[in-house]
């Protein structure tokens, strides 16, 4: 699309570009030029899953069902469209009776192959620098519940806030001054980013590093892997492709700063050369989670080079590549690599750099690397490191992580949780056996009962259960009063109980309560169960408190069964946990999130309307909830649940800290660790 075709911008329907070689043969992809994200969104609304007829060189071709996807306008073209609007405010596009934004630039991904012959001196890409296992654990850790994202107010650049989330380790890179903050002053929070994770001790050989990293993968310790990857980078000898006559190996042993960038699908970074006075030669970018094409442009000649960065690769920018070529990641949804269109996913990049001192005298090169600031205290945190770990141990107040990523999530997804999980009614055999063996007439506390999945098993065993849970909406599903219930009967229809237990099932005994303060009398219950609860507690002091509370409410001699998710999952399990503290997504269907679709039969006529409303609700939820995202293509809201995965022996260790509890059994079933305890 050339600039001279301005008038064409007003002609619609939009132009369809078919790759020249494929004009005769059947083709899979074609590019539709649109003028704005709104225009593109409108097209998707109109044409998704439709078949259309297009004109290719005079031949009418009926397409298959279309799958449309779009990339946002580039920053440059957005600026251009702003300028154009100023020049000619009358420029307006109309499509299907709707008003649209001003034209933007085509976002067709340019293929890397078009710049195959361009060489950027000092640019080296090493594939598979990080293993797949390492990548998985690193991503889980760096985007997980303990990731130290920079506080938002710190992410300003000259052109406004940096939209993507970033983390800094060692030293803060300040977007406002485009410089590194060299002094880590105690009184200035803004400079006190987390130290870089480091390895225990020195003198690491490559073999030792690999062994250490393998073990860290098994332990789910992303911070250890990050430390190992940094050390591996420091030790790597890069070929100097700059100087073929006298090859020298380059090393960057002084790397002292990490910036973690999270590029969501479609996000990019503007064209820039990293501040020369802030970092020494040798910038390293490690890609995790997604492919991406980075665009290099010579600052004088404008010559362009497109470089494919596969996931797990390391890119070194040194000499010319670092100082005289601009680099950028164009904001769009796909890249084109050797003729193949690669959709982008969320990419986490690790930028490893060597921050340097300011020149002291005349010479520009009299700078030295700043001292390394490192830690073995994980997770690394912003601000002053508190000396008194003991004090924190006493704190059992609800952390924000749990409020946002446990309590709020279960409140939001309660109805769907009950309809899917509850209905399936999968009980852990160990827990059922435990309940069956209790004496008849036992009073059982079900702490964190959720929708009351275990209630029937308790009743049928001849016991009476009192369930407590922090989520009121979940408890409402347990009594059949959920807002969206597709039943009008009293009592949840999914629970199957024998006729003598109908009365109990009709109105189960439940109370809203916190497992830090179980609202039951001390020594009043004969037994307690606490299933799939403790993996939502985010500190060890809260885990211990939960066990203490369980032992408080149960009589001497009474039994307690505790189960929680295990880090170690069976090899055939669909679940794999890449860390001890992770976000586990829950895919919520918008129809369960609101009350619109209470009656399934209402579909058909109203379905359009309902879908629209669902979409509205879904967007509302994804806006309101920390970390929740609306996946428009799947029509799902993805919530992030905080989970702590217990290592083998971890529950036992916690129990050993409580005098009133005696371990009488422990084991592993269906991806969970369990302990059976006796109150003594």
């Amino acid at each position, binding site marked *: 699309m050339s600039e001279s075709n301005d008038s064409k911008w007003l002609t619609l329907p939009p132009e369809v570009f078919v790759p020249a070689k494929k004009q005769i043969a059947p083709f899979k992809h074609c590019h539709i030029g649109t003028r704005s994200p709104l225009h593109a969104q409108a097209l998707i609304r109109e044409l998704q899953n439709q078949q259309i007829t297009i004109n290719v060189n005079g031949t009418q071709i009926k397409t298959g069902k279309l799958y449309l996807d779009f990339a946002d306008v580039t920053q440059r073209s957005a600026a251009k469209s702003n300028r154009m609007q100023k020049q000619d405010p009358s420029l307006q596009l109309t499509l299907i009776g709707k008003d649209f934004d001003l034209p933007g630039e085509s976002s067709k991904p340019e293929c890397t192959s078009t710049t195959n012959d361009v060489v950027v001196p000092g640019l080296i890409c090493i594939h598979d620098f990080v293993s797949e296992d390492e990548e998985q654990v690193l991503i889980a850790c760096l985007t997980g519940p303990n990731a130290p994202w920079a506080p938002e107010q710190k992410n300003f650049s000259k052109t406004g806030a940096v939209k993507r989330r970033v983390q800094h380790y060692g030293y803060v890179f300040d977007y406002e001054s485009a410089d590194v903050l060299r002094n880590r002053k105690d009184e200035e929070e803004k400079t006190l980013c987390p130290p870089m994770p480091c390895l225990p001790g020195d003198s690491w050989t490559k073999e030792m590093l690999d062994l250490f990293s393998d073990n860290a993968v098994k332990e789910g310790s992303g911070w250890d892997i990050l430390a190992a990857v940094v050390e591996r980078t420091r030790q790597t000898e890069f070929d100097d492709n700059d100087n073929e006559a006298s090859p020298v190996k380059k090393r960057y042993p002084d790397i002292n700063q990490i910036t973690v960038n999270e590029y969501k699908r479609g996000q990019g970074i503007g064209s820039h050369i990293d501040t020369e006075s802030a970092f020494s030669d040798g910038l390293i970018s490690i890609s995790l989670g997604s492919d991406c094409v980075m665009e290099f442009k010579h600052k004088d000649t404008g010559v362009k080079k497109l470089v494919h960065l596969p996931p797990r690769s390391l890119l070194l920018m040194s000499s010319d590549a670092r100082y005289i070529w601009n680099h950028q990641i164009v904001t769009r949804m796909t890249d084109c690599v050797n003729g193949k269109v690669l959709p982008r996913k969320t990419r986490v990049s690790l930028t490893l750099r060597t921050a340097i001192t300011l020149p002291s005298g005349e010479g520009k090169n009299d700078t030295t690397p700043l001292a390394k600031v490192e830690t073995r205290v994980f997770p690394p945190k912003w601000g002053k490191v508190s000396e008194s770990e003991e004090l924190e141990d006493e704190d059992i107040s609800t952390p924000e992580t749990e409020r946002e990523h446990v309590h709020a999530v279960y409140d939001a997804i309660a109805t769907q949780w009950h309809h899917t999980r509850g209905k399936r009614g999968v009980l852990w055999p160990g827990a059922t056996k435990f309940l069956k063996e209790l004496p008849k007439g036992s009073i059982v506390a079900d702490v964190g009962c959720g929708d009351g999945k275990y209630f029937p098993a308790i009743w049928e065993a*001849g016991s009476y259960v*009192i369930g407590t849970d*922090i989520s009121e909406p979940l408890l*409402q599903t347990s009594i059949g009063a959920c807002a969206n219930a597709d039943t009008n009967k009293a009592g949840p229809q999914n629970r199957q109980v024998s006729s003598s*237990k109908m009365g109990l099932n009709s*109105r189960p005994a439940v109370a*809203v309560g916190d497992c830090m303060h179980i609202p039951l009398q001390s020594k009043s219950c004969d037994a307690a169960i606490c299933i799939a609860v403790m993996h939502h507690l985010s500190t060890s002091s809260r885990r211990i408190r939960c066990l203490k509370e369980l032992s408080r409410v149960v009589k001497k001699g009474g039994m307690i069964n505790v189960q929680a998710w295990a880090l170690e999952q069976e090899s055939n399990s669909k679940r794999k946990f890449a860390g001890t503290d992770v976000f586990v997504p829950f895919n919520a269907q918008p129809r369960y999130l609101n009350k619109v679709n209470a009656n399934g039969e209402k579909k058909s006529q109203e379905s359009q309307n309902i879908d629209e409303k669902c979409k509205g609700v879904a967007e509302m939820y994804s806006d309101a909830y920390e970390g929740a995202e609306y996946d428009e293509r799947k029509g799902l809201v993805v919530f992030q649940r905080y989970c702590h995965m217990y290592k083998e022996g971890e529950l036992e260790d916690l129990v050993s800290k409580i005098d009133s509890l005696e371990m009488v059994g422990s084991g592993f079933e269906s991806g969970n660790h369990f302990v059976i305890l006796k109150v003594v």
Partner: protein
Amino acid sequence: MRLLTHNYMQSTVKGTEKGYPLKIEADKVEYEESPFDAEFVKALIPKLNYEILSFALGQIVEKCKQDIEEVQIPELPENIGEDLDEELLKKLHTVLFDLHVVEGHLICPDTGRRFAIKMGIPNMVLHADEM
């Protein structure tokens, strides 16, 4: 909320000594008949704090008499011994299983903190400054 459940509940507000028994302020009570299981009632009796059960019934009995027409609200004896006849077991069954406080409050005896009961579910969660 059944009176059986009430028998086990306590307030955990900061500053409570026992937090037990909770007073009941019933705004709405309901009766729902459930299958009588003499053995189950017998098994539960020894687990109960009978005094507290009588206390709880006393707290809601007037409301029950107002709201419930289906049955006569049983009167419980002051004490119960070892042998329980069928009639008493049936009375106990009604009090333990079939009377429900649907709306109202539970009140901490030590601090006066009021815990709301909605749809039969008492909300015992504490505010941050109560822990």
